[in-house]
C-alpha cells in the first residue's frame, strides 16, 4: 500500500502535468491496469519469482515479500489513475497563476496535488479496498502458509473449504471491521482537509 502510494501519487501528478506524445495511450494502459485481474498478477509474479523464473534466486516465493510485490502491482494503477484524473480536473489557470507568481515547478506540482487531495484520497481508498479484499494473487504467491502468509481472505477460503462456515463468516466480519476502521480514518482525513484553502 505504501509502495503503491509512493509510486502512484507522484507518477500520477507527473503524468497529468507533463504533456508528451503517447500520453493518451499510456492513460488507456493505466485505466486497463485499474481493472487488472489480480489472479493474473499473481500468476505472473509467481512465474517471475519461481525458482525456475528470472528472480528465483531471491527466494521470495511463498513469502511476505512476494505478497507485497503482487499487491503493489495491483494497487498502483488504481492510485495512479485516480490521482492523475483528479489532478487533471484542477483548472489549468491555477498552475499559470502560480507560475506567474514565481513558483518553481516543484512548488506548482505540490500545490496542484494539494488542491486535488480529495481525489488522491479516493485513490488511496480504492487501492486499499482492492488490496484488503484480494484473494487469488496472495493465495498463489503467498501459498496460504499458516502463521506466515495466511491473511484474512485466504483464511476465509480455507475455512470455507473445510466447511467451517461459521469461522469463515467471523473472519469476514473482522475483515470488514478492519476495513471500516481504516476507511473511516481516511474519511476523517478527507474531512479535516476538506475545505479548499
Amino acid at each position, binding site marked *: 500500500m505504501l509502495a503503491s502510494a509512493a509510486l502512484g501519487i507522484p507518477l500520477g501528478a507527473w503524468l497529468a502535468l507533463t504533456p508528451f506524445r503517447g500520453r493518451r495511450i499510456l492513460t488507456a494502459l493505466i485505466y486497463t491496469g485499474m481493472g487488472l485481474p489480480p489472479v493474473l498478477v499473481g500468476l505472473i509474479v509467481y512465474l517471475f519469482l519461481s525458482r525456475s523464473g528470472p528472480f*528465483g534466486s531471491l527466494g521470495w516465493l511463498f513469502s511476505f515479500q512476494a505478497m507485497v510485490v503482487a499487491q503493489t502491482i495491483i494497487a498502483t494503477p488504481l492510485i495512479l489513475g485516480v490521482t492523475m484524473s483528479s489532478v487533471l480536473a484542477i483548472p489549468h489557470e491555477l498552475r499559470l497563476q502560480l507560475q506567474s507568481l514565481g513558483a518553481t515547478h516543484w512548488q506548482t506540482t505540490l500545490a496542484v496535488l494539494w488542491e486535488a487531495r480529495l481525489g488522491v484520497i479516493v485513490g488511496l481508498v480504492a487501492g486499499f479496498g482492492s488490496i484488503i479484499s484480494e484473494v487469488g494473487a496472495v493465495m498463489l504467491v503467498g501459498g496460504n502458509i*499458516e502463521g506466515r502468509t495466511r491473511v484474512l481472505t485466504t*483464511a476465509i477460503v480455507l*475455512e470455507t473449504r473445510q*466447511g467451517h462456515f461459521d469461522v469463515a463468516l467471523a473472519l469476514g466480519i473482522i475483515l470488514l471491521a478492519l476495513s471500516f476502521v*481504516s476507511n473511516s480514518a481516511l474519511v476523517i*482525513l478527507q474531512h479535516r482537509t476538506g475545505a479548499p484553502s
Partner: protein
Amino acid sequence: MTLKKGLALAIFVSLIVVMAACQPAAPTPTPIPTASPTEEATAEPAEASNRLILATTTSTEDSGLLDSILPNFESTYNATVDVIAVGTGQALELGANGDADVVLVHARAREDAFVADGNGTQRYDVMYNDFVIVGPAEDPAGISGMTSAAEAFQTIARAEATFISRGDDSGTHTKERQIWDAAGVTPEGDWYVSAGQGMGEVLTMAEEQPGYTLSDRATYLARQEAGLTLEILVEGDQSLFNPYGVIPVNPEVHPNVNAALAQTFVDWLTSVETQALIASFEINGRQLFFPDSEAWRAAQGS
C-alpha cells in the same frame, strides 16, 4: 504546515492499512507451531536450513491430518514446515519448478512420471485411504450399494444425474477420469459440472445442487462432521484405492532445495512412530488414513 500534517497523517493511515492487510491471521483453534528462533531474521540463508516447503494436496490439510502430525516433526527437528495445499497437479508442478522441497500427493502414475523426469529423487509409500462415490440420500440415479465404481458412473451418465467433477487436474480428478475411462463413458452435457475447485468446495456444490461426486474418504468424513448431508453410496471397489506417496525434489536439478531436511522429513513420515500417529488420527472415531510405509509394513509383518 497543513500540507505536512496532512501528509504525515496520510502516511500513518497507510501504515495501519498495510499492517491490517498483511497481518497473518491465525484463526484456527489448532495451535500454531512455535516459530523457530531464526524466523524473525530477515536473512534468507539463515532460515533456509530449518524451513521446509511441503507441497501437498488439499485432502491432507482439509481433513486436519497435517495439523495433527506436523507439530511432532517441527518440535523434534526444530524446523518449520510451510504447507502449500493445492491440487496434486499444481503440487507436482511446484516441485518440478523447484518451488517446493518435498511433495506429498496421490496420483501414482504421475508420481512415477515425476521421478522418471528427474524432478524427484525417489517415491516412498506413505499411506492410503480410499475414494467414495457420494450423493444425495434420495439417490436419483439409483447407484446405492453398487460394488463397481465404473458401473455406478455408467448409471449416473445414463440417468444424466448431476455429477460435480473437481475439474482441476488434482489426484481426485485423475482418479475420476480413470473411472470414466473404465466405464467407457465420455462425460459431457449439462449434467456434468466441471467445478475447477478443491474437494471441500466440490462437496459443498454437490450438497447444494444436489449431485454426485467422487471424494476421498478423509475429506468427506471431515465435512460430514461439519454438517454435510451427502451419503456414501458406493465404496470398497478395488479401483477406488487411493495411495499417497512422498517425493523429495531432486537437488541435482534444483540446487536451492532443502534436500537434507526434505530427506529427514521423508524418513520421519515413513517411520513406524509417525505411521502410528497417522493411524491414530481419527474423526468421530473413524480412522481416515491407513499407514502403508515400508517400515510400517515390515513392523506389522514381524
